[in-house]
């Protein structure tokens, strides 16, 4: 009996926590009063521009400023990512992964956003998809979709920049991911990888089975919260280091430079080249993109910049251990071309090229 009450209390507390977090976000949306004052105004106010303390004050004030705007959003994004990761039926998704091409592409697109907020599950899943016989196409689709459009990045892009940009990011990333998958699976080197990973279809006859157990709700909620904490621990240190850099860039890059280099067709090209190979830790690309956008970068260039995330070097290195470098080079090029194309399209459609 006592065990039961304990569980009930725990369940209530945890549910209350998640409801409060969601409520906080809604509340902050409803009562949002956009303030024009930025950390630079504070720098002027305290007369820090001429002081030797400037180089300490910039990152400190920038981070304080950023978190004062973003803490609800970050808390919400991490909590929701934890919840979704815990409650999405992973075994159902993975079971259908090996069944045919169309199902493979569909699942790769649908599951990437939910399963891979953590990079350590991404490359193993890429290998797993290959071995399961879904083919190299869906594996590449999954690989490109995961960092581009996971729950965390979409929520942050939507809340911090705009939901129109977040929507464009999802659609464009999905399109590019599928196209890259189709192209790679049609190349001779893509086919070679597929063959190498082919396994005899004998899983049905083996004694092994999957019978996942489900713990009670209170334990699952607790696990969701723990996973959210784990994610925060993994991502936030790099995010804060990133913010320090963004703070300096924001303080010292004049608007004229952004306006002249990061707009128009050249702006998209530059943004796509900078956004890709240049490795930015997760979420930092959003903060930097937001800052550049405030300084006058076009929306088209902003989308290209955000879409650069999946084809950075760290990712490519991990993948080249499994697949041939030719495969990596192919999807690299397709992803880059895609980010330029969709940058143009979005720039023209939104009237901000």
């Amino acid at each position, binding site marked *: 009996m006592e065990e039961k009450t304990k569980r009930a209390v725990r369940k209530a507390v945890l549910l209350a926590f998640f409801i409060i977090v969601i409520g906080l976000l809604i509340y902050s949306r409803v009562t949002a009063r956009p303030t024009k004052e930025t950390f630079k105004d504070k720098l002027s106010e305290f007369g820090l521009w001429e002081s030797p303390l400037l180089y300490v004050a910039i990152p400190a004030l920038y981070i304080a400023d950023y978190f004062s705007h973003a803490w609800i959003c970050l808390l919400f994004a991490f909590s929701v990512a934890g919840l979704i990761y815990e409650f999405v039926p992973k075994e159902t998704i993975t079971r259908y992964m090996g069944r045919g091409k169309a199902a493979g592409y569909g699942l790769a697109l649908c599951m990437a956003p939910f399963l891979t907020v953590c990079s*350590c599950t991404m490359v193993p899943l890429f290998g797993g998809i290959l071995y399961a016989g879904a083919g190299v196409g869906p594996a590449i689709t999954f690989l490109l979709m995961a960092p581009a459009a996971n729950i965390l990045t979409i929520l942050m892009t939507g809340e911090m920049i705009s939901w129109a940009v977040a929507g464009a990011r999802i659609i464009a990333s999905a399109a590019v991911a599928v196209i890259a998958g189709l192209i790679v699976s049609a190349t001779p080197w893509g086919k070679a990888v597929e063959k190498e990973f082919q396994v005899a279809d004998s899983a049905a006859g083996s004694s092994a*089975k*999957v019978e*996942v157990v489900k*713990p009670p709700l209170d334990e699952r909620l607790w696990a969701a919260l723990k996973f959210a904490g784990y994610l925060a621990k993994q991502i936030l240190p790099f995010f804060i280091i990133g913010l320090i850099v963004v703070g300096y860039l924001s303080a010292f890059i004049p608007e004229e430079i952004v306006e002249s280099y990061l707009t128009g067709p050249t702006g998209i090209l530059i943004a796509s080249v900078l956004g890709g190979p240049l490795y930015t830790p997760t979420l930092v690309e959003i903060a930097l993109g937001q800052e550049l956008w405030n300084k006058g970068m076009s929306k088209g260039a902003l989308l290209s910049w955000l879409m650069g995330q999946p084809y950075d070097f760290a990712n490519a290195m991990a993948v080249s251990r499994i697949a041939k470098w030719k495969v990596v080079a192919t999807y690299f090029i397709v992803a880059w071309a895609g980010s330029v194309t969709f940058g143009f399209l979005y720039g023209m459609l939104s009237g901000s090229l």
Partner: protein
Amino acid sequence: MKEVKVEVIGPEPPCMRCQAAKKAVEKAAEKLKQAGVVVNVEKANIMSKEIVQKYGVLVSPAIAINNAVKIIGRVPSPEEVEKLIIEAAK
């Protein structure tokens, strides 16, 4: 004397959450040893042909007990693993 095989399935080199899962299994095994259950803890590579052939695509960390995957993509508590092993040993 009962014997139970527990496979902790994760990528190679192991990720942090897979190490946490393995620790939970080892803790449970240690405790069960006193109760007379022999637990063989094995580490399996999630990206090897054998494992995918056996279980299909998995999300790491996964735990299989006596050739049946019980846990996918989460870190269980030692108590939970203990319960599962006792069930399998029956």
